[in-house]
């Protein structure tokens, strides 16, 4: 890798072109990118547009420009500002799907293990681990003050004395804090088969190799049980 005088890596144009071609070859591309009149309806209806310098109109225009440089500029932060709510696709008068374009670009970032994808997916490694180990997405012990600050100011209090609080819930719980519900080993095996087929394990390997190792051990254990 080459670096400029500020130590920032220089990405060769050929590579940017390859990324663009990969997006353009996606089977959804033709359906998502049509004519665009720069009307701004998509952006006007886009929730994050109110908070960030982010615009689905720009995403679609960049795509239509076929300029690998412009598309590359979105790969780092831009595409991760989208909520994937698809309001844009619902309201575009010309039936474009900027959110869909973003999904295509994100999938490339994940498949290729780009730094941006690693950074964004980091907070979810706990969720992935929980899911692969227990078939649960969230469990009480995952409520910790340093994670998910967006859960509000009472997260600190909520995370203390979990076993007691758990018992106080007036309906049947498993009386444990590491599980929300029990999942049968057969179900777990099926889940792994789906993950295999859908390439989920490969994705985890590329964005978080150490997590992948831990998960592989768990998967092997369950599969051989």
């Amino acid at each position, binding site marked *: 890798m080459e670096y400029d005088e500020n130590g920032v890596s220089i990405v060769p144009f050929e590579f940017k072109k390859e990324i663009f071609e990969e997006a353009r070859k996606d089977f959804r591309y033709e359906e998502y990118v049509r004519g665009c*009149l*720069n*009307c*701004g*309806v*998509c*952006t*006007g*209806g886009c929730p994050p*547009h*109110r908070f960030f*310098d982010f*615009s689905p*109109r720009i995403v679609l225009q960049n795509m239509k420009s076929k300029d690998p440089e412009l598309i590359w500029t979105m790969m780092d932060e831009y595409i991760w500002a989208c909520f994937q709510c698809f309001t844009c696709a619902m*309201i575009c*008068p*010309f*039936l474009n799907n900027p959110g869909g374009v973003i999904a295509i670009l994100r999938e490339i970032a994940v498949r290729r293990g780009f730094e941006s994808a690693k950074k964004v997916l980091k907070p979810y490694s706990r969720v992935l681990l929980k899911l692969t180990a227990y078939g649960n997405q969230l469990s009480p012990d995952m409520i910790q003050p340093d994670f998910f600050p967006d859960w509000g100011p009472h997260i600190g209090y909520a995370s203390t004395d979990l076993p007691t609080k758990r018992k106080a819930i007036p309906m049947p719980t498993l009386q444990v804090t590491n599980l929300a519900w029990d999942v049968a080993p057969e179900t777990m095996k099926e889940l792994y088969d789906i993950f295999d087929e859908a390439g989920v394990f490969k994705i985890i390997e590329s964005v978080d190799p150490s997590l992948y190792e831990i998960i592989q051990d768990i998967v092997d254990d369950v599969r051989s049980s």
Partner: protein
Amino acid sequence: MAENILVIGGGPAGMQSATLLADLGVNVSLVERDSYLGGNPKKFKYKFLFPDMQPADNVIGELIRKTETNSNIKIYYSSEVSDFKENGKKFDVTIKSPNGNETKTFDSVIVATGFEHFDPARDAKYSYQLFDDVIDIKDLERMFGEGNVNRPSNGQPPKNVAFILCVGSRDRHVGNQYCSRVCCTVSVKQAIELREHFPDCEVYIFYMDIRTYGFFEDLYWEAMEEHDVQIVKGRVAEITSGPNNTVICKGEDTLLRGPFEIPFDMVVLASGMEGGPQSPEMAKKLGLELDEHGFLKPQNVTLAPFKSNKKGVFLAGACTGPKAISDSITEGGAAAMDAYVYAMKNK
């Protein structure tokens, strides 16, 4: 013996055809669905017309008077064509009127059944019919005609007004990909009229493209330079209710401000033109072709724009697509010529 020609539709186009043919000595039967002549401009009480802001009465009133006083024209009000049969090169037509049915043989036929305004309630994002202060250009035209352009919600003069262009046009969601051609100019005209009527009222136009084609462009510049109308590039994505009985337009100013949410006292939707139910109705009754936009289809849009696919049946005005009154009148004359030639040849 004089020729008999049938004109269906008594708007600007139909009236022009009828009066010209009558002046040539043709016996014209004019069938009009409504109880009055004048078409959409009369129905919605247009007061001043673009491009030169002349009183609509100069044009529409004048055509109505000429039509109504010409003894060669028999006008059937509140009527319709109930039966249509080819008879060699001629046509046997039954006209159903409040006075009963009448069947006549015509040498040729002109269809001038015009357009309908797009109903903005069909596009939920504009909240038309949900908020009293969201109206459209035909409503405003009628309000000017009736002399009251205050806010419908409370009868007060508006402090700011937004026009939103391309409502029901250039939008695949509502099924109309075409441009309605006149709504930009109508909006610019009405923006000027509002500024003149309420000098303290701010007027905004939200656009995707401004299509004041040809000389209509003069009005666009006048709106900007002489009347300080604010022209903002960006189509409004949503209209919601705001504080103090306002309506909020939410969208992206794609050139300057980025995201905006502006409360307005009144919003005017530039609804476009559609072929309406009458176009398919005519197509079915007379055996004509419809185009993919829902208007009647000329045999050749460039070479024979007034000829239908059926020999002896001619088309004029907005029934073949959105257009201004001047174009509709021009076509009324041209179709009259075609219809006359056909009638003469087959005498």
